[in-house]
């Protein structure tokens, strides 16, 4: 299998030079009640590379991802320790406004979850609540731009006022990406964005991620290793709540340093 992987790597884009980290996590521990789901993870996410989190089910990928925009706040039992910064600012500081944080760190979920409103309203919602547009015209511009960036414009431009839920799964997921883009985030977190999609839709999303790279810091959780290999430049391998290995994607897949990583990517478990 390892050879198959390596083959895929060849298609992959080259690694961008190491850059100033956009977000940093230091010794992050997350607890659900008494149960520790993340055990001291430190990681840097930079602007120019797509970072992939891989690991077997239940290892804490989603949990960790959600600490990055404090979506874990919505889980009553969840408790986060350690330090996470965005542009050097501690996002768990009391002075941090969560609402603003989430506008800056957007999120795309596993299952496409458009609002049961029109396509237009789906995109316009974020700019509206954040006061990014004052006139209808501004909003129109934002909607078009976001849909274009999400690669959905051509498919939906004639039916902007149809319901977002009437789109196909892949279109819905691109709509959600467009919705996240519309508030001009700095970081986009994606939690298994393709796992509910068919291969063609998946290919589209992967292509989109390529295009968005550089403009936003992107973190993507996946348990499809081929996908990680295809879309990311850096890969973090989680196991049982620990960050086992973090490095350049091609290194991780071709030359893992840790035994556990190797076992995982060669399919011994997971």
């Amino acid at each position, binding site marked *: 299998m390892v050879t198959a992987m390596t083959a895929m790597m060849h298609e992959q884009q080259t690694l961008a030079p190491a850059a100033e980290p956009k977000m940093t996590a230091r010794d992050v521990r997350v607890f659900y009640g008494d149960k520790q789901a993340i055990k001291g993870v430190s990681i840097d996410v930079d602007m120019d590379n797509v970072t992939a989190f891989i690991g077997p089910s239940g290892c804490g990928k989603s949990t960790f991802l959600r600490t990055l925009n404090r979506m874990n706040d919505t889980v009553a039992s969840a408790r986060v320790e350690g330090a996470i910064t965005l542009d050097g600012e501690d996002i768990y500081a009391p002075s941090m*406004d969560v*609402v*603003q944080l989430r*506008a*800056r760190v957007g999120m795309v979920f596993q299952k496409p979850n458009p609002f049961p409103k029109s396509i237009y309203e789906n995109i316009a919602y974020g700019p509206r609540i*954040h*006061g990014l547009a*004052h006139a209808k015209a501004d909003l129109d511009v934002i909607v078009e731009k976001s849909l274009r960036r999400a690669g959905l414009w051509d498919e939906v431009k004639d039916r902007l006022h149809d319901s977002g839920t009437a789109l196909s799964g892949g279109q819905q997921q691109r709509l959600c990406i467009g919705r996240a883009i519309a508030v001009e985030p700095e970081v986009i977190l994606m939690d298994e964005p393709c796992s509910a999609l068919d291969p063609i839709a998946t290919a589209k999303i992967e292509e989109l991620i390529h295009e968005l790279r550089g403009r936003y810091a992107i973190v993507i959780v996946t348990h499809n290793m081929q996908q990680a290999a295809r879309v990311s430049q850096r890969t973090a391998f989680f196991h049982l709540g620990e960050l086992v290995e973090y490095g350049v994607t091609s290194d991780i897949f071709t030359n893992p340093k840790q035994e556990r990583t190797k076992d995982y990517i060669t399919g011994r478990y997971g």
Partner: protein
Amino acid sequence: MTGSATFLLLAGLGAIAWVSARARALRLQGAARASGRRDAVHSLPGYHGWYVALWTLMPAGIFLAVWANVAPGLVTQDVLGSPAAQALPADDFSRSAILGEARAIATGMQAGAFNPLSQGLVEPYRDAIGKYGLAGTALAIMLAFAGGAYAFTRVRPDFRARTRVERLVMATLLIASLLAIVTTLGIVASLLWESFRFFSMVSPLDFLFGAKWSPQSAALGYGNDDAFGAVPLFWGTIFIGAIIAMAVAIPLGLMSAIYLTQYASPTVRRWMKPTLEMLAGVPTVVYGYFAALTIAPALRDFAVAIGIHGASSESALAAGLVMGVMIIPFVSSMADDSIAAVPQSMRDGSLAMGATTSETIRRVLIPAALPGVVGGVLLAVSRAIGETMIVVMAAGLAANLTLNPFASVTTVTTQIVQLLTGDQEFDSAKTLAAFALGLVLFIVTLLLNIVALRVVKKYREAYD
């Protein structure tokens, strides 16, 4: 200045506050946004508007609410001081009636004077009301301006107006939800207090275990001893609500649910389910009327025809039967839910073994759904024993301890109504007994519900 004018004025002020604060926020934020820092701007301008508007309206509103309670007293003081008031009669009620009338005329709520004395007081009233109305309005407006101004100075691009406004919203929601506790406490307090007084006259043991119920004789002054034995009432309640009604409702409800969920075609189900639910929508007074006028006489004639002794025109059976019919939809919808909650795989498993549908239902679905069905039945029982109108209209008042369904029995709720409507005797044990009965009813239905919900919940969890 009348109340509505003040109200309109304040509303206007609030609107102005909203608009101007919003405009200011918009302007300031435009500048701040240009600076490029994202957290330079916090809340949408609208939130600033709301923040300032609330500060404008709330203090003034609270003041007005207080003022509305204080001012009439001040007005009356004023009027009483006027020369025309000297002629008022001394007795309180006529006096306040005259004053009230004068005020009604002064405020235009009444056209002419019924009492000549009040005519003279209209002018003083008008003056006093005008004076205090004006004072109140002036103070309220001052407060509105003060509040608004304070809030307005806080409008800055990074001011967290949204957080403040939302905090108020949250507080409102919390207060609303506390009302449920207040109501519960109100019920418990009123029941406990009156029951306590009752039990200081009648021993709780006599009440709970005594077999003779004749509050009438207690009221006639023959003493409270053995007049308040509630066992016949409890028996009547159980006989009608838990035995006869359930004997109707359980088989019919359960079998209807089974038929509609397992056998009926979708069309039949679509029509029959709401039809049966309509049984629950018929008001109980209609059932009562129906039971008393149609069912009870028929049952009595029947009983007499087959020679049953002691058949009464307000038989337990008539009330119980009709109540059972009313309960059918409760049982059937609970049974429906419980059966639907049994996973389809269970049904498939049994059918794939070669079981017939009825075997599957009887041997797999019902046993699996049993806790839910039992919970539903308990809820239905609790509903039946608390049901009032059917028994008030169709069951009797004779506190009999009998097993004969054609005889007349009485129930807890019937007696509560009897004791409290009409016969409001002097603070006798008799009136208070209604509250003691209410307390028992409350506790029993509470326990039934707690148990039922437990059972249902536990069972639901088993399949989740």
